[in-house]
């Protein structure tokens, strides 16, 4: 199992992640976002797969993140498209909490992995 500091990046204190708020951060120059649904924190790419739009400007409803531009929806748990117009899934990143801090994997979860 990878340690929290090599393959994961520290983002923010878990306690600061409010329900349904979307927080943008950068990893290696790429935009990512994280959000909380209930007790769980999710992280995904920060740009919609349909057209360029920053998902931090979008919304969360249930377990879906919605693009602010055209309303494409992606399941935060799998990255699967839940509403058009996107047709390409959104990369999802594993999250873990260590000492109250949110760590997000540098690399996306493999497609099809639960």
């Amino acid at each position, binding site marked *: 199992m990878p340690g929290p500091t090599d393959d994961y990046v520290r983002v923010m204190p878990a306690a600061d992640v409010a329900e349904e708020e979307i927080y943008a951060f950068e990893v290696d120059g790429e935009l990512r976002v994280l959000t909380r649904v209930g007790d769980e924190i999710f992280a995904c790419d920060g740009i919609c797969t*349909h057209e360029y739009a920053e998902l931090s400007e*979008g*919304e969360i*409803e249930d377990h879906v993140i*919605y693009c*602010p531009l*055209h309303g494409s929806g992606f399941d935060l748990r799998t990255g699967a498209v839940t509403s*058009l*117009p996107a047709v390409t899934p959104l990369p999802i990143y594993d999250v873990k909490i260590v000492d109250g801090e949110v760590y997000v994997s540098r690399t996306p979860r493999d497609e099809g992995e639960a």
Partner: protein
Amino acid sequence: MSRRPAYVILGAGVAGHFAADALRQAGFDGQVLLIGAEPVRPYDRPALSKGILQGTKEPQAIIFQPEAFYREREIDLVLGRAAVEIDPAARRVVLDSGKSVSYDRLLIATGAAPIRPRLPGIDLPGVHVLRSLADAEALRAGLLAAERVLVIGAGFVGSEVAASARTLGRDVTLLDLLPAPMSRALGPELAAVYAELHRAHGVDLRMGRGVVELRGRDRVEEAVLDDGTLLACDLVVLGVGVRPAVDLAMAAGLDVDDGILVDEHCATNASGVYAAGDVATWWHPTLGRRIRVEHFDNAGEQGAAAGRAMAGQPEPYAPVPSFWTDQYDTTLQYYGYPVPWDQVVLRGDAAAFSVTAFYLAEGRIVAAAMLNRPKEHRSARRLVAAGAAVDPAVLADPDTDLRALSRQFAAG
């Protein structure tokens, strides 16, 4: 001896693509034939009037899926071919190649074609329509060479083309018989905001005006307006609406009223024949009436619904219709039913092009349009889905927390 059933989809546009995909996702393992008149694989049609015209997107980038996607799913793509006859009794379609194709189930997803008004000079070179990728590439080439562009019709396509032409730096006149851009769909209040937006970007708006003639020697050079004004132009775009492609269906004896009539499972009156997308006039079970919708979201979702119904997993298709339009640096998202409203409530700052419009019928929200207000999309959608009755003053109040308000109503 059993033969694999063959399901044929006529029209490889948005509805056709998502129908084929849904057939496989629903587990149908017979033959799937996706037949399209255009010579390209299914693509993201809304990008034509924006990214393709402006040159910010290459045609290849708007194609939904690579060839392998269809190959892996055993979806046989037949491109560059249109049907010339549908024979529901014999369960076959005849293609323009002369080939006859038998089907066990058929989906008609032939979309719609741009209306070309009967106008003197309409066939002059330099007069464009915009529906297909080929149309868009021809129009882009024309726009790059043009100086003065006249867009006839300020609906969604006309307004987006006008914005793209301005973005390319062309002189643009946008003309419509209606009082403001997209006023039929958006209502006068929000349409007025779009009139300001186009003016602010330097478009010469001629609202409440028609064109009676196009003139030119070898190509279009000027338009004669209905008040006698002569307008110089070297490129004209017709954006006066589309007509659903129902001719084959009518000849085949299918019930047609505007579009091909289908029930909430996308089924026509002919056994084994379905229709979806722009071409279908469908029974909306929640609304209790028939509607036809000419937008991407419906084409994709209804195509998928038709695919599932054909595969034996019918579910009533009863969405809150939605669409978007992008013009200049603005985006508008619309959720709602195409039904009459009697009151429009604006929320936000119209002068800053940041405004949400709620459409009410007898005190209930039937639609909402969000111009540059992305954080209000889902709340507005919930209010529309619930048919919420909300005090207009509360809706307009900038201090109202729409998210909290919308959650008081059972979401649909």
